[in-house]
Each structure stands twice: as structure tokens, then as C-alpha cells.
């Protein structure tokens, strides 16, 4: 898939493209991604995936960490309900993701930036569609750039006369 010019969708992308960190479970969705590869299904080069054994392993810290360190979105994919290799890990992921997305929304992270989905090992095409659709959505939403938010302590009225004191002892 030729690289899109994302700044046409949202000018804020000027100079870069969306970055999505993926957490894929070892048994279903990671294999779906493998199948997308062996089937040569193209999808945008926005996803950088990390393999975990089960979506049940997904510590919410990982999602927050990825957003904090510059990801524009996080995609978590596991096995379909009733197909979890570990019985019910995907249900646990679903509950945690529901709570995480609610919390992150309050912190200004659009829920579409943190998505949960399922793909069985046979659903390479579904995996491809999911990544493509999420990329398009992130492209619309624009860059997240959490670094800018953190660095902005924004003294609206600077007070230059207060003398600067050096750090340290």
C-alpha cells in the first residue's frame, strides 16, 4: 500500500505519519498478522506491534506508556470470545479496556485512539481491515503528541524579573 499523504486528511500530520502501537496476543491476532503477511495483504505501515501471550496480560500501564511516549493510538487485538487460548483472557481484556477507555477519555484521549478488536488466526483480512480503518480514524483525529501536553506548563503571563536559580546543590 503506497504511503498516504496524511497531511491531506489533517494538516497537522505535516512531516510525519500516524504511529500506532499494537498489542497482539500470541495465539490469534499475532497469527492473523502473520497470515496477512503470508497472504501479502497490504496495510498502512503505521502499526508497530508487540507480542504478548494473551490480551489478559495487557497491563493498562502499557497502553498509557505508549501514548505517553509518542504513539498516536494503541490497538489491542485478541481472540474472539470463547476462542481465547487461555479460556477467558479476552473477556478480562475487554473489561479492563472498557474502564481504561473511560478513564482516558476524561484525560482527553479520544476513545477511537485506544481500540480493542478480535481476529482469529484465520482472519488475516480482518486484521488488515482493522489496522487500515484505525489508521484512517487516527489520521482524522490528528497527532496526539503527548510530549507537547507535558511540556506545556504554559505560564501565560511570564514574569521575567523573578531571578533564575540554578538546579542542584
Amino acid at each position: 500500500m503506497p504511503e498516504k499523504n496524511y497531511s491531506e486528511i489533517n494538516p497537522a500530520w505535516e512531516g510525519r505519519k500516524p504511529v500506532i502501537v499494537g498489542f497482539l496476543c500470541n495465539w490469534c491476532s499475532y497469527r492473523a498478522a502473520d497470515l496477512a503477511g503470508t497472504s501479502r495483504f497490504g496495510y498502512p505501515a503505521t502499526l508497530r506491534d508487540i507480542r504478548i501471550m494473551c490480551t489478559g496480560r495487557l497491563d493498562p500501564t502499557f497502553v498509557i506508556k505508549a501514548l505517553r511516549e509518542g504513539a498516536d493510538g494503541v490497538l489491542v487485538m485478541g481472540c474472539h470470545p470463547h476462542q481465547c487460548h487461555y479460556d477467558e483472557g479476552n473477556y478480562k481484556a475487554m473489561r479492563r479496556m472498557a474502564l481504561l477507555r473511560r478513564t482516558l477519555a476524561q484525560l482527553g484521549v479520544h476513545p477511537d485512539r485506544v481500540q480493542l478488536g478480535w481476529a482469529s488466526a484465520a482472519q488475516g483480512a480482518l486484521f488488515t481491515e482493522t489496522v487500515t480503518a484505525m489508521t484512517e480514524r487516527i489520521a482524522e483525529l490528528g497527532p496526539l503528541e503527548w510530549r507537547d501536553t507535558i511540556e506545556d506548563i504554559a505560564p501565560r503571563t511570564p514574569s521575567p524579573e523573578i531571578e533564575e536559580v540554578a538546579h542542584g546543590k
Partner: protein
Amino acid sequence: MTEEKVGVYVCHCGHNIAGTVDVEDVAEWAAGMPNVAISRDYKFMCSSLGQELVEEDVKEYGLTRIVVAACSPHMHEPTFRRACERAGLNPYLFEMANIREHASWVHTDDINAATEKAKAIVGGSIRRVMELEPLEPFIAEINEPTLVVGGGIAGINTALEIANAGHPVYMVEREPSIGGHMAQLDKTFPTLDCSACILTPKMFDVGNHPNITLMTYSEVEQVDGYVGNFTVRVRKKARKIITDLCTGCGDCWSRCPAKVVDDVYEAGLGYRTAIYRPFPQAVPKYPVIDVDTCIYYEKGTCKACQKFCPTDAIDFDQEDEIVVLNVGNIVLATGYKLFDARKVPQYGYGRLANVFTSMEFERMVNASGPTGGKVLLRDGVTEPQTVGIIHCVGSRDRSYNQYCSNTCCMAALKFAHLVKERTGAEIYNFYIDIRTPSKNYEEFYHRILEEGAHLIRGRAAEVTDAARLPGEEGKLIIQAEDTLIGKQRRIPVDMVVLMAAMEPYDDAVEVSHRFGIGCSEAGFFTEKHPKLDPVATMTDGVFIAGACAGPKDIPESVEQGAAAAARVLTLIGQGEIEIEPIRATIDEDRCSGCRICNNLCPYSAIEFVEDLGVSRVNPALCKGCGTCVAACPSQVIEGQHFTFDSIMAQIEGVLYDRMEDTERVTYLGSQPAEAK
């Protein structure tokens, strides 16, 4: 950490990776990453030369961690782990970066994007590999005895194979006799040999085998432990019979005044007494008293059976008995139940007298069944002149079960033959598709066609007694679209047989939880791999065979029974098993005993140690899914090989180009607790 030396190997995979990813650029870039001592690109890393390259570098440069950027870990992780092992490096200090399936093959038309992504993947792996720890596999010893749950044809076969190989087997069966559904059948397709004739000898063998301990009228209540070492609690329900005294003479049930419909063995088409032996060839031969229908338990008097028992074998006060077994392996062969055809009201079962289920019909054509093998209407007298057989009742139907029930086409064709043979009636089979994919099945289908059965390709819309046309009065009318001629047809018949689907038992989901295995939403047990590992489950040491894993006919169930036995025998032969060390561990000193994690484990591997007030993971039960690790609110559960730090480092690694200049996250309490 500074003395760690990482070796990075970027594979060309011929043109597969190098055609889309600038592998030299990736290797050069990786060389600049912290701790990377060697970074190379190579044509085929998985070749013996590629593997040797790693081994030599480990020895020559003292590499302590290895990253191979090539294909999926599902492809070659074991290959390179072995290479590390040969080089004297712990295999768990190796990490595979998947830049083929996840990069070069999916971004074929954009070399820049693919290369950038490959760097991210490799960057994540380099950061991750630095956090990995050496691990050693666990060794579990295998107890010799095996538990087989379910005494149908699949379970019987498993038990006999293992017992014949000289190993002890416990067989637990819920009903008073083994035999399962096969014992109810008259003839078996496609050979039409007598079901009882081929089954009875096997049942006898199970009952008399020196290596088999048979527990009928019993159920498994609890399973603890892990592969090689399961502890199983079995409830032997009170038969109310002292089996040591009983000779199986039959004086008791012939005197019993309570007659009830037998919903199990006779599928509701016949009667049994309150004290009963399900069928003459039952194994074991002892009867059982059904306390729900026994007059003595209801009214306090009767005891006819006791009065007539020549050996004083009746004990009305007998109680359930709990037996605890220690076994190394478990085979589940718990079978299926028939779909309740009353759920399809338009077919009239339960409303229209002469609508029968397939299992009722099996009993009807069975020589030892309620009609002595005669095909009769519900009045028990009249022979039908026309019989309609409706396929796919409760299967291939989104309203009930979407799956194909596998065996019903052949059973329906067998019925067509039996009706013809016994009555000369006209037969109409209504089918969606005829599925006859096994040996000699298609031939059987043609034989039935030649015998003159009418096969109408069309799903029956309804069965009604509302006559409309001449000749319909007093008949059941099957309305269906004959899709081969494109016409609606109304076929008046005397008898309708519904080919009800095979379904999991109502408690199948509960049973799957009890044994710690997965099952589909419907309740069919899930195999480890549907193609390559069909009788194993995700739980080591627990195997499945027969229709409990999906609709199957007799040959398939027998095959699976034998296959499960072979898997068990392999483990018994090995005597011990290596278990991957990807496990969760709890730092008990720091566990606060909040018990959040306690009921999360699908394998019940977490136990709460009451007197210490901490939770503990049994490493032999743990499968390493990590769900408790993510749940622990005080972060004192660690998931080996997928540790918190390794994944956090990998996140930073994959965001290598986004993290520049970002202030590193500081966190409180960066010192280990002991230091204070």
C-alpha cells in the same frame, strides 16, 4: 547491565525481506543501539550457516543476548533457541524480531516505510532482549494411572488401548451402564452391522479388564493438580444395591410396580421400572434404584424389590461415596446429547403424535426396543405407509446451531433403508445437502436412492395436520420447497422423523471449567489445534475424544479414542514432561493479600495461603497467560519472559523515533525494598 553484549542479525530471507526492507540500513542502525556489540545482515539466517554464524559470534565475542530479525517467531523461534543453546547461551535470552510477515510482506510497495517499521520492530526487540532473564524448563513426573471420563464408544476405546498396554485406568460414567449412545442404536451405517454385536464385547472387556477400575453412576466433582499429577474427586452415587451380593438375576425389576418413561436409554419411547438395569447387556450388570421414581422413597412403603431379592442385595439406606483418585492424565469422552426438537415448534414434536425424533426412531427399529423392532405409529399398532424424514433439525440453522451435525445425513439414509426393509412404506427425505464424505458413505447413499427412497432437496417449512387438499385428511403434511424443481410441495405422510442435531450436554461448559479446558459457546470442548492437535487441549495432560469436541460418528469417535490413548501412552512412556517456563510468580513478601487475582486464573493455579495472608502461584498449573500479572494492583506478580520491564522497554524501543528528547519517566521508589 553495561557488560551485556547483544548480537543483532538481520535476515534477507533471500528476496523476501531484502526486497522491501533495506536490511543493510537496519543492521547499521541497530549497531548504534546501546549494548549492541555485533550487528550483521545475512542472506538466510535459518540456514545451518546462519545458525552457525550466531553460535560462532557468541563464542568469539562473548555475546550474552541475541536478536534475530527475520520471520515470525511461530516459524523459527525454536530453531534459534536451539542455536543459542548449542552456543552455551540460555535459550530464553533470545528474541525474534518479525520483519517479514509484519513488515516486508505487508508493505511491499514502500521501501522507506517498511524499513522504518523494521527498525521499530528491531528496536523493540533489542530493548526487550536486554530485560530478559535466563529460564529453565520445569520437569513434571507422570503418574501412571489414567482417568477416562465417559463410557461411550470413544471412552471405551481409550480405556482399552491404555489398559491393554499394561497401565491402570479409571473409567467414570454418569449413567448406570457404559455403552453410551451406541448402545441405543440398532444398525450402524454404512455397513448396517448390528450395533450391539460390535459394542457388547468391548463393554464386556472394560468390565472385566484387570487394569480397568470401572465406576458407573458416578461423576467427577473436582479436579486439582497438573499434568502427571492430578487429584480427582469422584462421587459414586448410591445405587442402593450392594453390588458384592447382587447377581443381576432380575427378580427385583420384574417385581417393581413403578413404571416410568425411560427418557435416557429408551429416548422417551419406552418404559422402565424404578429399579432398573438400562438394557440387558449393561456393564456392570447390577441394577440401580432411581430414588426420584421409587415408590418407597415417595410413600415410605413398597420394598417389593427387597422382598424378592434372593441375595439381600438391596440397601435403601446406602449413601453416596466419595473416591479420591491420583492420576497422571485425563481423557474426556463425555459425548453429546440430542437437540430438543420441541424447540422447533413448526415441526410439531410434542404436539403432533406421529412426529418422532431420530433417537426415538432408533429405539423403535431396535429389536430389543419398545416395539420389538417394528416401525409403528404412536398408537403402537399401525404401520405407516409413508414416512417423512426431515434432516438438519436444530443444525445448520442460525436460530439453533449453525454447525452441521455431521452424522444425521447418514443416519437418515439408514432410517430410509430400515423403513423400507421393515414396512415397505414410501420414504421422503427432506434435506438441505446430502453430506457423505467418509469411506463407503456415498455408495450407501446411492444404494438408498436405488432402493426407491424419495429425496427432496428442500428444507421443510412445517409439519402440520391441517389438511387442505384431497388425500391429506388424517395425515401429517410436510410442506417444503423442492429446490431442484423449484416448486412448493406438500407431502402427506403417516410418520415424521426429525433428525435432531447433536449438542453438547447442558453442563458441558461447567465441566470444561472443572477440568480447566476451553469450550465453544455451545459447549463443545476446544482442541489444542483443530488440525494438528485434535485430541489435546490447552491444559497439558487433559485430552478429549469423541463427540464432546463436536458432532462425530462412530468411526471418528473410535479413532479419537485411540488417538487420545496414544497421546497418554507417550507421556506415560516418557515418565516426565518438560513444561515451558513462561509462568507467573508472586513476590510473597510483598503480596498484600488483597485477593484480586484469586479467581482470575483459568487454571486455578493461584491459591490463597490463609495463614500467611498471601496468594501463591502453583507453577505446574500456571500456563503463563499473564492475566493475574496485569491485574495485580500492587505489581508484585511478575510474568516470566513477558515481564513488566521487558514490555515497557519494548514499547520504548518500537517508539525509537518518537522518543527522542522525551524526558525519561521517573518513578517513585526506584530502589528495591530490601535496600532500605
